[in-house]
């Protein structure tokens, strides 16, 4: 008989865990508190796959997981029965001429941490050859030719549709009240499993996890034709514009140290949308389709983790890097599950984060 696993939380990491375990012969139950998991952090994401650029404030391990994950997304998307928008046409990073030192510092840090990273400094016409419509005030930028982006929502929907055929049970709209080694307790039942996996992000029982507020906008901008993600460096936080399907763009994202889900503030609105408007004046006429607030699950060092605690396998702390690292992190979590340990270079992922509250 197949081994039975419960995966709790159907964001990107929970969904990939359920997918991967089902494919390798486990009988999986997938739980999520929402009927349609649209309130989670993964659904709110932009799907920016900035495997190199993320080094700006991430550690080299993220870069390594992200590089492997980019390759894996291609095959995951191919294996899904419906098309999901995924591209690797590179990404751009722009900077105001006043903040040029910031671009220098960013480039320097990336070169130092990853000397062979695919990154080019572009000036003037070379920049506009890549993205002809960006505002001419930008005369310099960094181009990351191997980076990409994925329509995170379409991916989750497609994954969930396929999981309905793959897993033993889809328990959406089911609140898990308690989980422990081998059991998952809901309002109506207590089920037993060979392995329980907690992928609930901020709501998980993982020690030391915190929520970091992020706000973003989804806009429809028919006057704008930008075909790859464009980041604008800013002293406080980089703002990015990520193209999704036709005419739709995601503009994000703030990063505020608090676990607060209240609506987007005026300040954040001004910061994000004025940045988009500066990149391309056509955003002035865009329709705001959505404003989104979510909290990213993060450990104190903002690095992801997978570890056993009291017999429960945790995969958590993906922070801003959910879509960036989840395919490789899924592989590693399964490796930990099957072999009880990780290869030496991935040991930091297994370290249980210290509790600070």
């Amino acid at each position, binding site marked *: 008989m197949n081994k039975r696993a419960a995966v709790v939380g159907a964001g990107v990491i929970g969904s990939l865990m359920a997918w991967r375990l089902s494919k390798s012969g486990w009988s999986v139950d997938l739980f999520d508190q929402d009927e349609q998991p649209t309130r989670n952090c993964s659904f709110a994401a932009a799907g920016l796959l900035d495997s190199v650029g993320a080094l700006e*404030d*991430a550690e080299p391990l993220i870069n390594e997981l992200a590089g492997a994950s980019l390759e894996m997304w291609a095959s995951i998307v191919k294996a899904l029965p419906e098309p999901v928008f995924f591209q690797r046409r590179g990404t751009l990073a722009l900077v105001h001429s*006043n903040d040029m030192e910031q671009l220098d*510092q960013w480039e320097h*840090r990336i070169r*130092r941490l990853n000397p062979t990273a695919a990154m080019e400094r572009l000036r003037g016409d070379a920049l506009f050859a890549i993205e002809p419509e960006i505002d001419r005030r930008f005369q310099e930028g960094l181009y990351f030719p191997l980076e990409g982006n994925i329509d995170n929502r379409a991916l989750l929907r497609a994954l969930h549709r396929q999981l309905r055929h793959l897993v033993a049970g889809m328990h959406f709209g089911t609140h898990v009240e308690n989980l422990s080694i081998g059991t998952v307790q809901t309002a109506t039942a207590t089920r037993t499993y060979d392995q329980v996996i907690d992928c609930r992000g901020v709501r998980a029982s993982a020690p*030391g996890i*915190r*929520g970091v*507020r992020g706000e973003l906008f989804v806009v429809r901008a028919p006057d704008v034709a930008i075909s790859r993600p464009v980041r604008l460096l800013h*002293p406080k936080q980089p703002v990015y514009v990520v193209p999704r399907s036709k005419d739709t763009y995601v503009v994000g994202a703030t990063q*505020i*140290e*608090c*676990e*607060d889900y*209240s609506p987007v*503030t005026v*300040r954040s609105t001004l910061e994000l949308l004025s940045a988009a408007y500066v990149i391309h004046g056509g955003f002035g006429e865009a329709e705001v389709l959505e404003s989104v607030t979510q909290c990213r699950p*993060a*450990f*104190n*060092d*903002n*690095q992801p983790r997978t570890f056993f605690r009291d017999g429960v396998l945790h995969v958590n702390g993906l922070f801003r890097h959910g879509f960036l690292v989840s395919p490789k992190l899924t592989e590693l979590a399964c490796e930990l599950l099957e072999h009880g340990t990780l290869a030496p270079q991935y040991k930091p992922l297994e370290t249980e984060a210290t509790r*600070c*509250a």
Partner: protein
Amino acid sequence: MWKIAGIELESRLFLGTAQYRSPELLRQAIAASKTQVVTVSLRRQSKALHGAENFWSIIQQSGVHILPNTAGCRSVKEAVSTAQMARQVFNTNWIKLEVIGNEHTLQPDPFGLVEAARILCGEGFSVFPYTNDDPVVAERLLASGCRILMPWGAPIGSGRGLQNEYALQILRDQFPHTPLIVDAGIGAPSHAARAMELGYDGVLLNTAVARSEDPPRMAKAFANAVTAGRLAFEAGLIQAKQKAEASTPVLGTPFWQQDNPGSPL
């Protein structure tokens, strides 16, 4: 040991808490700097007071004094109400008062600053005003009830070091008994050491540590620089001279060498 706003401190380095790549790096930097005072911004997190326990607890557990600030406030009213909120939240009457006069240079607005300082001192706050290096503004701040002055070295976040050492020296000479802290513009440990050599009581910095490649290591570098600069001030720096002066006495040097000014002494 030195004393500021009624508290005895060992360290003369004040550290900001913004812009770190992670809270864990912030924690390590605080520990490595041996700082005893960190400044925290309330403004962007005002709505987060109940949602950021995890973040605050890192700062609180490090056992340092918290100096709330009014970073980014552009009006007297905004700065005063932020200070009042900070007093409740952090249970301290300390406030690093910033009233920003220019969004681009983040220069202090001296007029608003003096007015806000007068109001807050009247309400019993211990005001640490972020000011420019103008002695007249400094006098007005002291007349408003401030007991501490925090002149800038250079614009916030610029890392340019002490842009007007002459003005800073004048402030030091004019206010020998007022605690003076250089706040803003410090980019390198040598800048911090220089401020301490001038006789400043402390330095406050953030970006230079937070955005460095290795914040805990840079925090330690600043701690050493501040200690070195202070020791140098206490030891008494020699005066720079126009000409060389032999540290080896000329007496006892063979006469043919004395005749040749180009020969090594």
